[in-house]
């Protein structure tokens, strides 16, 4: 192994190996393999029905592949349920954002921050917390302030800092998307799966998402990005994997895949078909 290849292997954090997913006679994913490295944005492109969302579902444990496996570092993820995969550091957002109704924007992020901050001691003892809250001890106030500041940072970064005290029920669609992203970043995941994070957003909101994606990359998170807005995807992705009809047809930098005749054919063929 060359030195460069060794460094590459060390940086690889998520490995998708020969994943096949069949639904009856339909092959949604056909022998797909690729890997993602720490601190990179890996774009996942492909025409409608190419299998992108299925791929995310397989990675995060919502669907079990017919064949093949997914591994996080040395840890095999295939077969583990969604919450176990999340606990190991793979977090995702959904095409339709999923909110915690009844919580405010700030609280939604704080819940996620707490899960991370307390680790194995989560959740803290209700009795002890009640006493600390009731007495308003100095330690308690300090903990609350630290949590609040961290939440404010994340909300400011995604561009919804001014919405902190709004109930989540009152958010517009784009705001929900940004909150879901802030909440996902709050758990400081190893791998972050973003499923069409830009769709339905206005230009300001798109800036917030792209800014957050770059910040996540700088923090060493491997970001997997499914996005129909090809221009934005190519502008932020370090590498791109292209799927078509469940098969991986190309992989490379943005510059490489955009001139790849197979990719062009897949997209144009799709539009004509």
């Amino acid at each position, binding site marked *: 192994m060359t030195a460069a290849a060794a460094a590459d292997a060390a940086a690889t954090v998520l490995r998708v190996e020969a994943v096949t997913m069949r639904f009856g006679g339909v092959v949604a994913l056909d022998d797909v393999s690729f890997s993602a490295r720490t601190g990179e944005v890996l774009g996942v492109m492909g025409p409608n029905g190419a299998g992108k969302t299925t791929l995310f579902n397989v990675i995060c444990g919502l669907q079990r592949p017919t064949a093949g496996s997914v591994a996080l570092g040395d840890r095999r993820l295939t077969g583990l349920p969604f919450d176990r995969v999340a606990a190991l550091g793979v977090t995702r957002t959904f095409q339709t954002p999923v*909110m*915690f109704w009844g919580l405010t924007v700030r609280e*939604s992020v704080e819940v996620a921050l*707490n899960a991370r901050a307390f680790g194995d001691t989560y959740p803290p003892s209700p009795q002890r*917390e009640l006493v600390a*809250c*009731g007495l308003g001890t100095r330690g308690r106030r300090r903990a609350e302030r630290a949590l609040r500041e961290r939440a404010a940072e994340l909300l400011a970064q995604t561009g919804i800092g001014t919405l902190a005290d709004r109930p989540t029920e009152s958010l517009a669609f784009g705001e929900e998307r940004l909150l879901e992203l802030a909440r996902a970043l709050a758990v400081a995941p190893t791998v972050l799966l973003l499923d069409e994070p830009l769709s339905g957003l206005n230009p300001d909101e798109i800036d917030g998402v792209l800014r957050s994606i770059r910040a996540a990359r700088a923090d060493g998170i491997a970001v997997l990005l499914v996005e129909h807005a090809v221009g934005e995807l190519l502008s932020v992705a370090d590498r791109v994997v292209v799927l078509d009809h469940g098969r991986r047809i190309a992989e490379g930098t943005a510059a490489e895949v955009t001139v790849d005749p197979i990719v062009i054919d897949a997209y144009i063929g799709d539009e004509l078909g």
Partner: protein
Amino acid sequence: MEAIWQYVLAGVVDGAIFALVAAGFVLIYQVTGIINFAQGEFVMIGGMTAASLATAGMPVLAAAGIAVVVAAAAGALAYLVAIRPARKATGVTLIFITLGLDVAIRGLGLFVWGTNPYSLPAFSAGNAIAIFGGVLPPQAAWVLGTDAIVFGALYLFFRHTFVGMAVRAAVANPPIASAFGIPLRRFAFLSFVAAAAIGGLGGVVITPIPGAQYDMGLTYGLAGFVAAVLGGLDSLPGALLGGFVLGILEHLAGGLLSPGWEQGIAFLLLVLVLVVRPQGLLGRAVRRA
């Protein structure tokens, strides 16, 4: 007019206990989606344990403390033995399980304590409390104080603690909450323990007024359920309001119409709420996802 005021006062005292039982219904329903029809039996366990220990010579407050712990332990046991093994079951099955649990606990109460009524001395000596011409027994202050503390603590818990915030997230969307490290099963367990402890505490503080008997859980369970539905099954303030409304209406109906109406009014109210305002007084009409 004086009589009516006296009924209202008596209704407030009973209603305070209904509110505690209703809070137990709401806690368990919110966290697990289960309607625990055995809720009234924790009132019985609390009342009977305190009364029998005090009768055996234990100081009243010590007996009261132990009774609450026993009720909480009974709630923990009920969850581990009857609910947890069936957590994959559907709603109707779980309702039958809690109904069975109710009968089983009452039977156990009969086995342990027999059919004789027990009494418990008031927690503090003193004269009757006079309020605008009406009178309440001194124990009423303990009853209302208990409500203030319990509901105050619940408010603090849900609005200001990290655990309470996590419970609210779990209530909003269980699968996603569990992906954020929120332990759903632990919360289900804790909701049963807390509901049982609160119900037991209700039984302990009310027993000095009417006394305790092995089958008292039936009355409190029904009243607590109606109070919870009246307030909206997903609202703790609703449970508090529902408890007082039901308590006052029961005493007014019992006093002004006939004693038979005291129980009947609960059913009447239940039907009325389900027809006119199914989401309850303070509940949200939004369905759970």
